[in-house]
């Protein structure tokens, strides 16, 4: 091994410093929001947002968990995420697998049919009209799920992964008399777990983070997903107050700000806890999918 020169050590040191700084830049806002949600409203208004709660208090959390709003929104988001991801994976894999088979004659035509939607859109107005006027999907929880069942990007990721699987595997199963459905579900999918984890995570994330569709198409409060609830709480102080004022404590200032923050933390919680476990899968999965198909 060649001994490190002084110049090399300087480069190495500056890399450590720079990456640490960027990591701090990424993590500080999280720490600030979490710690500020655990302080009292008066302290927040007086001392401002900080990295450490000056007067520790979980009042905001107590308040939001006493009210039904957050539970309903959580229910909507969980339903949309679980059902949406399961259906989307089913539809996406079913579309991607045939496209990965070289002997399928109309494969390229179908490829282009899907790819074209990445190039050209009808635009917001046409989508809005289609969904509200012609499909009548407004104020239905399915408006958050069905239009998002196929993401071309995710479909192509999945297809590229299927392509990387040795063809002889499917062929030998076919000789043994297995049909395509059996091959897909019993042979291909079980060995595609890294790709399923990756693409599944992307879908789950998209469903978990949906708010724009809710803003456009949903006006019933019972159907608000978490992310849109935050949007409402943000843009509408009264909405935050209705959550906290239902819990009546005389002489107690409604903790608008901390309620907002606590709701935010409750929303990002599951992602932060799940993410470190899934990270290694999707980094690997993305590397396979990034190979051009």
């Amino acid at each position, binding site marked *: 091994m060649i001994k490190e020169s002084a110049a090399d050590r300087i480069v190495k040191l500056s890399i450590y410093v720079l990456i640490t700084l960027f990591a701090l*830049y990424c993590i500080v806002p999280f720490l600030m929001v979490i710690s500020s949600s655990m302080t009292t409203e008066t302290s927040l208004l007086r001392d401002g947002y900080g990295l450490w709660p000056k007067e520790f208090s979980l009042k905001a959390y107590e308040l939001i968990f006493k009210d039904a709003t957050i539970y309903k929104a959580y229910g909507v988001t969980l339903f949309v995420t679980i059902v949406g991801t399961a259906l989307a994976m089913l539809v996406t894999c079913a579309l991607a697998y045939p496209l990965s088979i070289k002997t399928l004659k109309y494969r390229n035509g179908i490829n282009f049919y899907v790819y074209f939607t990445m190039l050209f859109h009808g635009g917001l107005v046409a989508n809005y009209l289609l969904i509200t006027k012609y499909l009548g999907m407004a104020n239905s929880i399915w408006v958050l799920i069905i239009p998002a069942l*196929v993401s071309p990007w995710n479909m192509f990721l999945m297809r590229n992964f299927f392509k990387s699987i040795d063809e002889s595997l499917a062929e030998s199963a076919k000789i043994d008399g297995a049909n395509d459905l059996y091959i897909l579900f019993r042979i291909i999918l079980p060995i595609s777990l890294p790709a399923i984890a990756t693409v599944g995570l992307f879908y789950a994330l998209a469903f978990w983070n949906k708010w724009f569709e809710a803003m456009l198409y949903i006006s019933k409060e019972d159907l608000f997903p978490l992310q849109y609830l935050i949007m409402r709480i943000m843009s509408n102080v009264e909405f935050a107050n209705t959550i906290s004022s239902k819990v009546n404590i005389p002489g107690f200032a409604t903790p608008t700000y901390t309620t907002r923050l606590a709701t935010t933390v409750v929303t990002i919680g599951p992602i932060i806890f799940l993410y470190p476990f899934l990270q290694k899968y999707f980094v690997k999965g993305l590397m396979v999918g990034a190979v051009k198909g």
Partner: protein
Amino acid sequence: MREAALQKTGSKAAGQQKKDSFFSELHKNGLLYLLTLPGLLVVFIFSYLPIGGIVIAFQDFNPRLGLFKSEFVGLKNFSFFFESSDTIKVMVNTLFLNTLFIGIGTLASVAIAIMLSELGGKWFKRITQTIVTLPYFLSWTVISMFIVALLSSENGFINKILGAFGIAEISFFNEAAYWPAILVLIKLWQGAGFGSIVYMATISGINPDIYESASIDGAGRWKKIRFITLPLLKPTIILMLLLAMGGIFYGDFGMIFAIVGRNPILYPTTDVIDTYVYRALMDLGDMSMAASVGVFQSMVGFILVLTANQMARKFSPDSALF
């Protein structure tokens, strides 16, 4: 093999043969085509049907009369849209902000990828990589909460820090001039770490022998980065830039709407085509005008993708998309 067999039997007339091969293909791979059906349907309904809705841009659309009975007015909506001074401002903003996002974002992602792959320590590398990719997983509505906590004038985090150094409070939400910079910083925070994954994938695919022979020739860390890693990253960088270029005419609606929202003070620097269309649709209820802006945007976007791809073919054929 079966295809060859089929071709041998095809001694019939050419037209007959074509028909035959279509049905025999369906017969042979029917189950596979059946599998694609749900996906094809979803794509058709939610991506192709709206393309037909482009007609609205050429109509004086009246929701009560609907798509088929509204009056046809030709290009009137488009001329209205091009005569408005807002439109030019909005287009300039979209292009300017996206150019900043793409340029600075790519630089940062490449830099992070190189730095992370230079790191030796396993746990340090894992922790930093986890932290820098984490923000990508938050929705823009959540991020907008973060931004308020950071930037609000009286008790915001940044102003508290500035205050500690004796610097006067800045009211960020009342000053449009700061926002291009703020938006770029937010975009970096959210996307740069995640964007580095694809570059890290490329770096990890580089043959280690190249680095080894370089160190035998006496190349230090910096030289190896400059003369091996960067040149080998070039095709990936070009591909990613091209992908981004196709979308340069689309503002990041989710980001800008969630963060800026309905704050007209900030419109001069932050209003992009998408937020403008949204307001035309929701606030003014002017569907035809909103649709004409949308059609224009789709057309330009389409042309940009095709141009970008042509350019890719010229520069580095490996980077072309199709």
